[in-house]
């Protein structure tokens, strides 16, 4: 009970600070996933088309995923120095696997007969991609972005070790303070909350964009 009371006092006294760190934390995660989406979705489409490339690309991003987060950050720090950009690059790299893999699976999963129908109607390859393949695989791609964002929010907490701030700084401060249990919770709860919220919102988008719904919308 004591710890709950401490937690409430902490929130009421440091509200503004927590909010800035929360915002910062979210922005770092979102930028990482955004850039990974900008790079990953075209790459996914590309390897779905040229299937010879796919094992190479997929095993490459798989290898990235196996590097421990702290090690990746440390290596990137040597090259890029301290700060938010290094964290964003790390999150970018971690987000590539779910995004590329889901795009690849989504595009391959589109019914061949539909593509052939498009072809028969005289559509160009780009038109088939834009009007058939992408709309039908959009919800799978969104699922990739959703996974990536949730992972990114988790990993962004260790960004504090290279001076990027974020909710991780609150957690680390709690581990350094004597009897800092309440401070650790004060940092961990918003992080978990953000991940759950991101999962929920992205899940909502995913359902909205699924082929069954898009027919209703149009």
């Amino acid at each position, binding site marked *: 009970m004591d710890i709950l009371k401490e937690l409430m006092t*902490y929130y009421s006294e*440091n509200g503004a600070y927590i909010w800035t760190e929360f915002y910062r934390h979210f922005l770092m995660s979102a930028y990482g996933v955004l*850039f990974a989406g900008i790079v990953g979705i075209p790459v996914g489409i590309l390897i779905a088309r040229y299937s010879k490339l796919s094992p190479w690309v997929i095993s490459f991003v798989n290898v990235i995923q196996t590097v421990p987060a702290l090690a990746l950050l440390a290596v990137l720090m040597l090259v890029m120095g301290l*700060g*938010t950009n290094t964290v964003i690059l790390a999150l970018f790299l971690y987000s590539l696997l779910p995004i590329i893999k889901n795009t690849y699976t989504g595009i391959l999963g589109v019914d061949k007969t539909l593509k052939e129908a498009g072809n028969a109607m005289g559509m160009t390859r780009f038109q088939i991609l834009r009007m058939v393949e992408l709309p039908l695989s959009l919800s799978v791609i969104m699922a990739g972005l959703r996974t990536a964002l949730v992972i990114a929010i988790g990993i962004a907490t260790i960004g504090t070790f290279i001076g990027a701030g974020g909710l991780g700084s609150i957690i680390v401060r709690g581990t350094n*303070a004597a009897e800092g249990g309440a401070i650790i919770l004060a940092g961990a709860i918003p992080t978990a909350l953000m991940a759950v919220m991101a999962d929920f919102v992205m899940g909502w988008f995913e359902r909205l964009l699924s082929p069954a719904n898009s027919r209703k919308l149009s």
Partner: protein
Amino acid sequence: MKKRIKLVLVGMMTAFLLSGCSLPGLGGGSANTIKIGTVTTSETQTLGYIQKYMIEHYTDLHAEIVGNLGSSIVMHQAMVNGDVDISAARYTGTDLSGALHMDLVNDPDEAMEIVQREFEEQFDQKWYDTYGFDNTYVLSVRQDVADKDGLEKVSDLESVADKYQFGVDNSWINREGIGYDEFIKEYGFEFNKIYPMQIGLVYSALNSGKMDAVLAYSTDARLKQFNLATLEDDKHFFPPYDASPVATNEVLQEHPEIDEILQKMVGKFDNETIIELNYQADIEKREPSTVAREYLEEHNYFEDN
């Protein structure tokens, strides 16, 4: 068309990452952002935020905290690389042995003089005069024991030390030049028994009566929390760890007003003040940023002097 937009975006992103510019929402452009480095301790964080708010109060510049750096060596490296412009607090003893690879010096003024000279020469950085506090080893006893045995200085322990249990930091006992053996040689007495432990435990061990004297850190908030007395190191056995801000000459030349701001802070924080600020952060569990803001508002951002 879409591909081209994507290409442009990818290009922009690479440019952002490589140029070291900040993305929207994560701090302003690098030219007008002053980066202040802090390590994990509350006192450097509070001082860092005080600097940040001072800079934002007196100038139009934006200041950003690069926090939770692993050690003062990491901070030093970050300053040399240009990732950090100002160190919130650096300690003479730490930098003598760490960044400069020199031997510790027992005279505080001499130590200060060396770091100021060497940092100017070797790293083109300005080491300011001390804030007014030092975070060094200090011998501490319970207030009632100090009153009863009439203890004020470390030498006063000589007559009673053979009855005292002495709790110390694990890493101190065998430290070369300033360890327990040298302590015995310098002060000429031994404690009854010596108990090495984690530094964080010595305060409660002393408070609960399990120890009669401990070797503590001189700015730890628990000295205030448990109302412990500290004894003057009358033979200057422990090396000085006076704290000062450090800034790169580059940032000072570019923004001379920062020099004035840091000068304003010199000499304004004695040990008592720092313990009070640490107390608010560590024991009352308030964020250093909140503590710093309140302190500055209370002191009117040092505008009067």
